[in-house]
C-alpha cells in the first residue's frame, strides 16, 4: 500500500553528546580517587565509615599519647621509634588492609560491573593500576599520618631536629615499602573472590597466620641455639619481612623474638623477598583481570 514516498524516520529527540570528552587520563584519575575515597568510607554510607575511621582513630591514638608523654615527662626521644610504629600497630593495620582491599575489588566482581568499566576508554591495565595505586595510597596514609603527627609533635616538644628528621625519614621509607608490599598482596588475594566477607577473612589469614607461625618458629630456633636462622625464617611472612628490613637497614629495634637482628645476608634476602613478593603479586593481579568475563 505504501509507496515509500511518505516513509520517514521520526526525530524523537535523541541527541548526541556534544560536551567535552575528558579522555582516558581523566577516567583513570576518577577511578583512582573514587577507590581511595571509598577505602576511608568517604562517599559511602555512615555505617561504612565507622570501621575505617574507627581504626584510623585507634591508629592515631598512640602517636598523640606518646607526644603528650614526651612533652610532659620531658623525654629526649619518643617511646616508640618511627620505624617500629606500623609494626607495633600491626593488628590494626592488618584489619584495615583486610577491609580496604576487598572493598575496592569485590563489589565490582560481585555485581559484574567490570565489563562496564572496560567498555569505557580505560583498559584492563588501567583498572589494575588505578586500584593498586589507590590501595597503596590508602595504606600509606594510614601508616604515615600518625608518623607525621608524631614528628610535628616531637619537633614542637623540642626533641632535637636532626635526630627526629632522620628517624622520620626512615619511618617514611619503611611506610612506602610497607604500603607497596601489603597492597599488592592484599589486592591480589581480594580479587580472587567476589564475596566481601570471604575476602576479608582471606586477607587477614594471609597476613596473620604466616606471621604467628614464623614468630613461633623463630622463638624455637633461638632457644635451640641457631640465632642465625631467625632472620632467614623471617622470609616467610609479610610482617616479619618488614620487621627484618627495618632492623637491618633502618637502624630500627628488631621485633623478632629476643630482639634478634637478621644477619647481613638474611637482611638482603629479606629485602629481595619483599620486592619479589610485591612484583609477583602485582603480575598475578594483572593476570586475574585478563580474562574476558571474569
Amino acid at each position: 500500500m505504501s509507496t515509500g514516498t511518505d516513509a520517514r524516520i521520526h526525530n524523537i529527540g535523541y541527541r548526541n553528546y556534544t560536551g567535552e570528552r575528558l579522555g582516558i587520563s581523566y577516567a583513570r584519575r576518577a577511578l583512582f580517587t573514587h577507590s581511595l575515597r571509598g577505602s576511608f568510607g568517604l562517599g559511602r554510607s555512615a555505617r561504612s565509615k565507622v570501621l575505617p575511621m574507627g581504626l584510623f582513630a585507634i591508629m592515631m591514638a598512640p602517636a598523640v599519647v606518646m607526644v603528650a608523654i614526651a612533652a610532659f615527662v620531658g623525654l629526649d626521644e619518643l617511646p616508640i621509634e618511627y620505624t617500629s610504629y606500623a609494626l607495633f600497630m600491626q593488628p590494626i593495620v592488618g584489619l584495615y588492609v583486610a577491609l580496604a582491599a576487598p572493598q575496592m575489588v569485590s563489589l565490582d566482581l560481585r555485581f559484574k560491573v567490570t565489563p562496564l568499566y572496560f567498555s569505557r576508554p580505560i583498559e584492563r591495565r588501567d583498572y589494575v593500576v588505578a586500584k593498586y595505586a589507590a590501595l597503596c595510597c590508602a595504606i600509606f596514609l594510614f601508616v604515615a599520618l600518625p608518623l607525621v603527627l608524631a614528628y610535628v609533635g616531637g619537633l614542637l616538644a623540642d626533641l632535637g631536629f636532626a635526630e627526629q628528621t632522620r628517624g622520620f625519614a626512615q619511618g617514611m621509607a619503611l611506610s612506602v615499602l610497607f604500603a607497596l608490599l601489603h597492597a599488592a598482596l592484599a589486592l591480589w588475594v581480594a580479587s580472587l573472590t567476589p564475596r566481601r566477607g570471604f575476602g576479608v577473612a582471606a586477607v587477614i589469614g594471609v597476613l596473620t597466620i604466616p606471621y604467628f607461625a614464623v614468630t613461633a618458629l623463630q622463638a624455637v630456633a633461638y632457644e635451640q641455639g641457631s640465632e642465625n636462622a631467625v632472620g632467614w625464617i623471617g622470609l616467610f611472612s609479610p610482617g616479619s619481612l618488614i620487621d627484618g628490613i627495618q632492623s637491618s637497614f633502618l637502624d630500627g629495634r628488631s621485633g623478632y623474638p629476643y630482639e634478634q637482628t637478621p644477619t647481613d645476608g638474611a637482611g638482603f634476602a629479606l629485602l629481595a623477598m619483599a620486592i619479589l613478593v610485591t612484583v609477583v603479586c602485582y603480575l598475578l593481579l594483572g593476570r586475574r583481570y585478563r580474562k574476558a568475563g571474569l
Partner: protein
Amino acid sequence: MYNHTVARLTYRALLGRRRVLILIALPALLLTISLAVRLIGGSDDGAAVEVLGGFALASMVPLIGVVAGTGAIAPEIDDGSIVYLLAKPLPRRTIILTKLTVAIAVTVAFTTAPILVSGLILNGNSQGIASAYTVAAAVAAVAYSAIFLLLGTVSRNAVVFGLIYALVWEALLGSTLPGVRTLSVQQWSLSLAEGIAASGADVTSDVALPLALVLLVAATVLGTWYSIRRLTALTVTGDG
C-alpha cells in the same frame, strides 16, 4: 533440641566449597611446622610449648572458630535464605542449638586432632604438654563457637568483628594490658592446660582455674542464650 535436617544443611554449608580449604589449610600448616621443628631441632619441650601455645592455640583455634561459628549461620542471614528455615514448624531454639552443636563439632574436630598429633610429633606428650593443649583447644572451641555464632546473629560484619576480637583484643591488647587477659577465651583455656600439664612445663595462664571455668561456662551459656533471643526476634518479613 536437635534437628538432623538442620544439622545436615549446616554441615554442608561449613564443609562445602572453599570454606573447607581454610579449615584444612591451618591444621596442615601446624603439622608441617611440627614436623620441620622435630626433624631439625629434635624433641624439645620448650619448642612444643612455643608451637602449640604461640601458633596453635593463639591463632589456629580462634580462626577456625571464626570460620565455623560465623559460617554456621551468618551467610544464611546475609542472603536471606534463613527465611526458609524459620518458616518450618521448628522452634528457633532448636535451630540455634543444632547450628551451635555443628559449629562446635567442626571446630573441635579440626583443632584437637591436629594439635594432639603435632604435640606427639614434637615431644611425644612429654610432661603432658600435648594432652594439655588438646583439652584447652577443645574447651576453647566450645566457647569460641558460642561467641562467634552470636556475632553471626548480631552483625552483618560478623567475620570482621570475630577477627577483631581474636586479633586485636586477644593478641594486641592482651599483650600490653594485663587486665584484658582476664577476659580472653585463650587465657581461660590456657588455665586449664596449666592444670593438666606437668608443673615443669612452661604453660602459664593469668587466670585462676576456678574463675576460668566459671567464665568459660558463662560465656558459652550467655552467648547461646542471646543468639536464641536474637533469632527469635528476627522478623521474617524484615530486610533481615
